[in-house]
């Protein structure tokens, strides 16, 4: 059963989470019960897909063994190459699963959520390397973090230390009540976004575009903007469900969207769009890369380091979305746009060519909006498969 895909799913959730709510409203501990809920919910989500279950179990065992062994190793030593090996091993299942379709008709390695779960494993390895995770985490809590069902299929991507803090806290009744209300509110926001606005855009406009548009160009132009809004409402709606259910379970999963279409520039956009993903890449790829280059003084030019970091980040993000040409092109497009913006920002700091006022702000938002929508047009695959007929 697809998470948040049907009323049946929400109905089952309501029944499963009723004891959580009752315990929470009485200020009692409920995370042990929630772990049980997570197991049942996973069984329901993967029920019709035996391949998926087996792949998920093998993936989880692999990650847990890897993390546990690396933590044990890190207590004694801290060799760089062992760290890179461990980090590579943690993304290996994802790499195999992305390559598999090119070699075989059945993807034995992939399962719903593998792209998102991989972030959790890799992040644990990196934070262990940094000395932030010192104690071997109890197996139950580690599994709960990796397999936390509300965010299993598409995030938001949480971080172990943040998650584990929430798990260990027993909320007083009045605080839980507030969290519960916020959670329910989120879930209704999800219905509005995904099943009313998103559905409406898709069903009434995108599906009928050939009757609305009078030329191929117009068709693709409308599609670009409609698809951008559809993508936002669909994904932000899903995220609201995932965050809402997390809240009800006492876990404050991070936000994923913050009004992305009013971004003032590309850096601002990535602080507002799919935030848990872009922050992950920012903290674990871009900043680490820049840190390494700066500290080892391998590259002296500051702008070059920064731009190379962006290219690395966005190409990786592209490949992460998938190996289809539109995703790689999407990554390359954002790398180029970001390098362009970064160069402009540096130039403008010196020459003050683009002043800061109400009018320039509006123009900035408009430019960013169209640049972003064109990115989603690439992402949709239309540019590659339909746009060339122009």
């Amino acid at each position, binding site marked *: 059963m697809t998470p948040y895909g049907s009323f049946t799913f929400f109905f089952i959730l309501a029944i499963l989470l009723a004891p959580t709510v009752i315990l929470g409203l009485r200020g009692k501990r409920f995370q042990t019960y929630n772990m049980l809920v997570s197991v049942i919910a996973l069984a329901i989500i993967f029920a019709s897909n035996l391949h998926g279950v087996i792949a998920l179990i093998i993936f989880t065992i692999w990650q847990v063994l890897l993390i546990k062994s690396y933590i044990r190793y890190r207590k004694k030593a801290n060799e760089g190459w062992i760290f890179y090996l461990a980090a590579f091993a943690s993304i290996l299942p994802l790499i195999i699963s992305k390559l598999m379709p090119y070699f075989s008709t059945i993807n034995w390695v992939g399962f719903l959520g593998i792209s998102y779960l991989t972030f959790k494993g890799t992040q644990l390895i990196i934070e262990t390397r940094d000395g*932030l995770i010192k104690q071997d985490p109890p197996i139950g809590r580690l599994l709960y973090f990796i397999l936390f069902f509300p965010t299993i299929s598409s995030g938001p991507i949480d971080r172990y230390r943040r998650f584990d803090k929430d798990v260990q806290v027993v909320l007083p009744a009045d605080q839980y009540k507030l969290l519960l209300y916020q959670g329910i509110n989120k879930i209704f926001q999800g219905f509005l976004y995904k099943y009313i606005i998103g559905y409406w855009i898709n069903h009434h406009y995108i599906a009928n575009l050939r009757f609305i548009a009078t030329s191929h160009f117009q068709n693709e132009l409308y599609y670009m903007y409609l698809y951008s809004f559809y993508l936002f409402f669909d994904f932000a709606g899903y995220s609201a469900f995932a965050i809402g259910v997390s809240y009800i379970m006492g876990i404050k999963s991070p936000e994923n969207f913050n009004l992305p279409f009013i971004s003032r520039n590309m850096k601002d956009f990535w602080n507002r769009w799919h935030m848990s993903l872009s922050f992950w890449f920012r*903290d674990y790829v*871009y*900043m680490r890369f820049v*840190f390494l280059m*700066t500290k080892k003084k391998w590259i002296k030019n500051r702008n070059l380091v920064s731009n190379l970091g962006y290219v690395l980040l966005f190409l990786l993000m592209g490949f992460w979305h998938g190996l289809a040409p539109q995703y790689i092109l999407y990554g390359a497009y954002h790398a180029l746009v970001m390098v362009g913006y970064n160069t402009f920002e540096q130039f403008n700091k010196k020459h003050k060519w683009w002043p800061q006022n109400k009018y320039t702000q509006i123009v900035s938002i408009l430019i960013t909006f169209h640049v972003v929508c064109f990115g989603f047009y690439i992402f949709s695959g239309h540019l590659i498969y339909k746009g060339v007929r122009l």
Partner: protein
Amino acid sequence: MEFKNEVIELLAEICQDDAVKENPDINLFDTGLLDSFGTVELLVQVEERFGITVPITEFDRDVWNTPNNIALQLADMK
């Protein structure tokens, strides 16, 4: 107090802006004075000048948000 001034001096160098000295409670990220790149420069300099190693993922923008707060966090880690 002296340590705090040194941290603020360093921040002013990295942000290339004296606003940091004038208002040590200014939010560095909301105002765009500091971004990811500046943060990394800060962490590298903190390690070189003060010998304090701050892991990148320890740098939470909600906590390390103003010159005063950064100085406070660093003083704790000394």
